[in-house]
């Protein structure tokens, strides 16, 4: 019975692709009719932006209280539903903290980008809360997390090596997103946000398909976007590791009953580890030395490799691409970019100016590519060092970085049950 229902639901998800947008050419008027001027929606009035920030701050505070003080999974779930409705379907997924990374990167790069205060607040507030209370934003405030939260029906645990490998994808995504935003090339996080077309009931088909796919996967692999794609999750993960107060599985001393061991759909519960390990100290120290050397090597080779990717990455920038098209002088290429060429030529812009601008962007990519490569090499190296550092643990604890503070594990603890029903 269950399998039939699940199968039906699986079959159902792809039909969401009907939300994909259609385009239709405008009529070709020959005379008499003047086309209306293209208009863009006016920016949201400041008071509404302030309301968004206040709602965000309130939701974060409430989430922290529900998780750390109240220890209420039901409260967290209800707040998740609210966030899905408000930040997701009402605010249509924008502004969001994840995309805020790009605004901040563009602003810091000095490319004449403006950073609205509301966007800055959306970027900073969840990180500040993570520094104090863990990933309460992921738990109940992020609309992208919320829509996936609703899909967790039959979660399965992934093998640890698989989740470890997939967990590096967001780091690469973060690095690329920052590079492209800082060079003024693209806001890939917004452009490829898989759930925004669902919130807006319309969008680009390929992105929508990606969203549907992630929701389907999310039925058995809990919150795949949050764990294996979200670039903001990387920052929250790092901040949460330093959190002053973090959710605990038990409200009291752990009795190691193992009842919570499988309670987390995100595989973020760490089992107790004895301090004694069957390995001599000398071997461990030697390994650590090699790993530290490897860290330096990986950072260096990352810098070198990244600096050579300018030719691959720079054409993502529209100026560089247009310059390339103009230079190629190839009919097939010109046909492919006919609209861009027409716009450029009819705009009366000087190709030499474009070329100079494109060259400036290329220079940015040379430096930025090296930084990206160095960053990725450093993170990989640090991750290898991190997994090699042994910490003794005498209780079941959430992994401070990976725990999404969803509060699912609370109820599995007998001490928690006792607290609730004294």
């Amino acid at each position, binding site marked *: *019975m*269950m399998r*039939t*229902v*699940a199968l*039906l*639901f699986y079959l*159902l998800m*792809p*039909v*969401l*692709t*009907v*939300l*994909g947008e*259609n385009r*239709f050419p405008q*009529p070709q008027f020959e005379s008499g009719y003047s086309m209306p001027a293209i208009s863009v929606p006016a920016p949201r009035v400041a008071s509404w932006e302030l309301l968004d920030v206040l709602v965000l701050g309130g939701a974060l505070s409430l989430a922290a209280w529900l998780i750390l003080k109240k220890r209420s999974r039901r409260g967290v779930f209800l707040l998740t539903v609210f966030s899905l409705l408000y930040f997701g379907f009402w605010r249509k997924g924008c502004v969001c903290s994840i995309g805020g990374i790009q605004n901040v990167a563009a602003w810091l790069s000095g490319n004449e980008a403006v950073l609205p205060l509301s966007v800055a607040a959306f970027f900073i507030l969840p990180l500040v809360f993570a520094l104090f209370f863990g990933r309460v934003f992921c738990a109940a405030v992020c609309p992208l997390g919320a829509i996936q939260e*609703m899909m967790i*029906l039959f979660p399965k645990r992934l093998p*640890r*090596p698989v989740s*470890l*490998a997939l967990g*590096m994808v967001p780091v*690469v995504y973060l690095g690329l997103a920052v590079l492209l935003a800082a060079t003024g090339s693209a806001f890939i996080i917004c452009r490829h946000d898989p759930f925004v077309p669902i919130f807006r*009931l319309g969008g680009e088909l390929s992105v929508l398909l990606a969203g549907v796919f992630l929701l389907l996967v999310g039925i058995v692999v809990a919150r795949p976007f949050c764990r294996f794609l979200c670039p903001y999750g990387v920052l929250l993960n790092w901040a949460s590791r330093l959190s002053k107060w973090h959710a605990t599985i038990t409200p009291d001393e752990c009795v190691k*009953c*193992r*009842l*919570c*061991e*499988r309670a987390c759909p995100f595989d973020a519960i760490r*089992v107790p*580890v004895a301090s004694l390990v*069957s*390995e001599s100290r000398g071997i461990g120290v030697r390994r650590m030395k090699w790993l530290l050397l490897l860290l330096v090597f*990986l950072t260096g*080779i*990352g810098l070198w*490799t*990244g600096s*050579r*990717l300018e*030719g*691959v990455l720079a054409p993502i920038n529209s100026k560089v691409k247009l310059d390339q098209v103009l*230079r*190629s*002088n*190839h*009919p097939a290429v010109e046909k492919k970019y006919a609209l861009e060429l027409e716009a450029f030529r009819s705009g009366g812009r000087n*190709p*030499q100016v474009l*070329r100079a601008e494109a060259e400036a962007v290329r220079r940015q990519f040379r430096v930025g590519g090296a930084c990206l490569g160095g960053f990725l090499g450093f993170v*990989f190296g640090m*991750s*290898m060092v991190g*997994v*090699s550092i042994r910490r003794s643990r005498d209780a079941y604890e959430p992994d401070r970085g990976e725990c999404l503070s969803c509060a699912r594990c609370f109820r*599995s603890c007998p001490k928690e049950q006792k607290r609730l029903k004294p």
Partner: protein
Amino acid sequence: MSLESKSSQSLYRMACAVAVVSCVFSLLVGMLLVSNSMAVRMASPLELPELEHLREILKASPVDQAVTDKIRDLDQVVRHLYFTGLASRKMGIILLLTGMVVSLLSLQAVAWLRRRQPEPRGYPPGPDPLQAESVARWVLAGLGGVILAIAVWFGQVDRDLRAGSVSDKPLSSSDAAGTSASTVNTSGDSVRETAITWPSFRGTSGNGVAASTNFPVAWDGATGSGVLWKVEVPLSGMSLPVVWGNKVYLTGASAETRVVYCYDLATGTRLWQVEAKGIANSSKKVPEIFQDTGYAAPTSVTDDRLVCSIFANGDVVAIDPCAKTLWTLDLGLPFNRYGHSSSLARFQDKVLIQYDQDAEKGIPSRLLALDAMTGKTAWSTPRKVSDSWSSPVVAETEKGAQLITMANDAIIAYDPASGRELWAVKCSGSDVGPSPIFAGGLVLASITGDRIYAIRPDGSGDVTATHVAWTSEDGVTDVSSPVSNGELVFFAHSGGLITCLEVKTGKKVWDHNLDGEFYGSPGLAGDKLYLVARNGTVFILKAGRQFEEISKATLGEPSDSSPVFVGDRILIRGLKTLYCIGNKAN
């Protein structure tokens, strides 16, 4: 299973039933929506056969108001249907989402009711911490390695593409010339462009050296063996093809007609031709020319924005890659005994013209620079020389860019940015046809009727006594220009004598008589010299310290052309035909 009580069991059954019904409902709505969506996506309402038919009728009778009205009515109906469909789709989407939310809630209820008590005793023991650490390290190392390999591969592929994907070891002009500063890249082109373009007379650097090395050494134009394509050029001309990207530009002219042709490098298809006509003040008088010169002897210049050409009557035309004429200019009928044949040069955004004329007629020679995009004169400098047939070359020397010119009376260098004269070497030539090159740090100029001059380009004023490194009477040519690899320089006399001199000293290394006459200048690709004889035979020699003939190829028709090296192909203009020679496997 937490379905112990009867109420729980009935709740579970109800949740399952709701889930099934809502899923089936949503599925049906969804399928209808998908089919509707696909139909809308695939439909091209504006390409309806009826509409197309009406448009055809309208084309035949453009003033038929009835047809116009019919088209408008049909267009409106089509659009109305389309947008009505979109509107109904919105309702469908709302139904679908409602059904899905109900499905999801019921499934959540089902999952909640199916909860099981955890059974820790059945859990397998966790992995050994040391082993887990080791696995984690290997996973990270493996993933990092894969990402690194992909990044390196992408970087390398990109670099190969930039290098023109034609040479394992691409020769830049400066490498080929063996000098730290050579006649390179005065327009700021990238390395890749250097490999796939040939933007002016004798290439980017103006010295006839290819940017890559793997060119064919055997072909037969008559049988088509080794020839990728050949096309007949309607009007003849001595000008060489210039190439940018996939476009090959060529000029041809008769006494009355002057045309710029554009061919597809890949196939030889003629993409367009533009006649230079309607030029204001253009002289209707036909210039007196020597038959060997013709009406279209000067080679054009090109870049990604335009091709600029000059003809024997002094008409200049600039055309964009889409065949649109950007500007035209009449320089006035040149008084030149054999006809104007000096090719254009380019420097940054300027087109440079050496317009030497017969001093005895009282018409001063001049050098002028035109803005490439507008045709406006950027600067103009008078030249105290008589008519010549040599082409100017922009050399990138250690002192900066210099525009080197040759004439009967002097070799003169100018600042290409301002037209200011930098230095001059007096000479006493006659009917100077060859053009200079810059190699090994020296300007090499073969002054017909005089000697070969090697000049250090770091002087100013009259440097005849101070900066001539050496002169040689061996190897002086009359028509063709030299070519050099920086160590050796090669000259081809029209009579068939090939001479090799040492660039540094001017000492003769070897000379050899070939069975051919040479008007076209030799080209150099790696260690191979390509010499096109007037009868169409192409001699391929080793560019070394000893004479060595590698092979001979034939065009199948006479030619006074120099080889044009683009990518891994050679373009050679015959008397009537343009040949593209290359390896079909590439």
